[in-house]
């Protein structure tokens, strides 16, 4: 599988963010997005997820345009954005089970447990999300990636609020995902120590007046 963007143009409001952007991720590859604030890292991830429509250019999955069938495209990706999408009155396990069901995964107790175990959250499984710290909430959000498998991970600043131990845990999970043939596009300021990851530098777009 190859996921690629060709000549992508992004306009937020009336402000051009980037233009003529190309990228390419294949099986088992990790692409790190780099660039200053406002360079369009988040926008690129949102375009790849289909939340934001590109003003120009094409997104291709194995050579076929992703916009042929957005629902199918959504089915093969997982997105982690700036917010953790947890309901404060539901327990950690309930939150995870809900996301698994919404993504059409038949929920086995094992899948959610394994995801919680992996992110070191097992003791918190029955705790309502409102009692969690910011870092714990972020870990639950990341555990969602493990509870509902997807080919393509789009991670927008996934290390926000994570301590060094948790960041290392995340790096391990991403390496594992890639080792099993998964793809990941990650916007991050931290060096996650992902050997072999490719880098894509985004330049702020300059308008010709």
């Amino acid at each position, binding site marked *: 599988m190859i996921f690629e963007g060709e000549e992508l*143009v992004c*306009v*937020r*409001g*009336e*402000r*051009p963010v980037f*233009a*003529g952007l190309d990228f390419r991720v294949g099986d088992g590859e990790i692409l790190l997005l780099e660039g200053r604030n406002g360079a369009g890292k988040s926008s690129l991830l949102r375009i790849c997820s289909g939340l934001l429509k590109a*003003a*120009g250019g094409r997104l291709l999955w194995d050579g076929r345009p992703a916009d042929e069938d957005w629902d199918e495209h959504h089915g093969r990706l997982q997105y982690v954005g700036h917010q953790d999408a947890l309901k404060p009155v539901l327990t950690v396990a309930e939150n995870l089970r809900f996301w698994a069901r919404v993504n059409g995964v038949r929920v086995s107790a094992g899948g959610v447990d394994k995801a919680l175990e992996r992110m070191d959250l097992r003791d918190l499984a029955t705790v309502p999300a409102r009692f969690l710290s910011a870092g714990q909430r972020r870990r639950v959000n990341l555990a969602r990636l493990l509870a509902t498998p997807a080919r393509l991970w789009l991670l927008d600043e996934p290390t926000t609020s994570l301590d060094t131990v948790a960041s290392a845990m995340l790096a391990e999970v991403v390496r594992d995902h890639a080792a099993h043939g998964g793809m990941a596009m990650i916007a991050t300021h931290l060096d996650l120590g992902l050997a072999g990851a490719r880098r894509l530098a985004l330049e*702020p*777009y*300059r*308008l010709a*007046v």
Partner: protein
Amino acid sequence: MSVMHRFANPTRFLRIVELLFPWVAGVTALLTVVGLYLGLFVAPPDYQQGDTVRIMFVHVPAAWMALFVYAVMAVCSAMSLIWRHPVADLTAKSCAPIGACFTFIALATGSLWGEPMWGTWWVWDARLTSMLILFFLYLGYMAIWEAYDDPTRAARAAAILALVGSVNLPIIKFSVDWWNTLHQPASVATMSGPKIHSSILIPLLVMALAFKGYFLTVLMMRVRSEIIGMKVRRLRLAVARD
């Protein structure tokens, strides 16, 4: 680059507007003068209503335009959703205040006419009620433009609302008509008022054309200033980045 082409398109539109504007404005002024003269001095006073009937020459065209402008707005909104063309957005946006004004004029002149005719400023008559609701729809449409910070998003939200409104407007009209006939059918009968005679019909049609011309004139002015506003915002953004 294709995006820049889309931004460039309004420029061509502006040139067409510049070319047409003096003609449309001139014809409108002429029609208004002729229409008012015919309506105020040539048309005979009604044998029952006297000179009050002359309100009709403003009232009826305003009511027609209130609906016509909403239709224009809805068509532009559909075009904006399908083709994402900024000129369609700006035209729809510019329509709303004009349409709201026509609706208000129709309501106000109707009220002025109603006082001597029915002895009251306001009746919960089917037409009055549905015009009032149309006025609310215009207000909601204008409010949603103001509510969003980002003009391109405001444009699409407003377009969705305008289309929902255009589906609902006939339903509202129908239900209000129906509601009214149940409650007080008598007051509608007086609305049928004067028989249309050519001495009245001609001034009425001239005034209707004058209103249409006025709409086009003001619409051109508004769209032009909206396009210029958009260019200014773009320049500011470009300057801010350097």
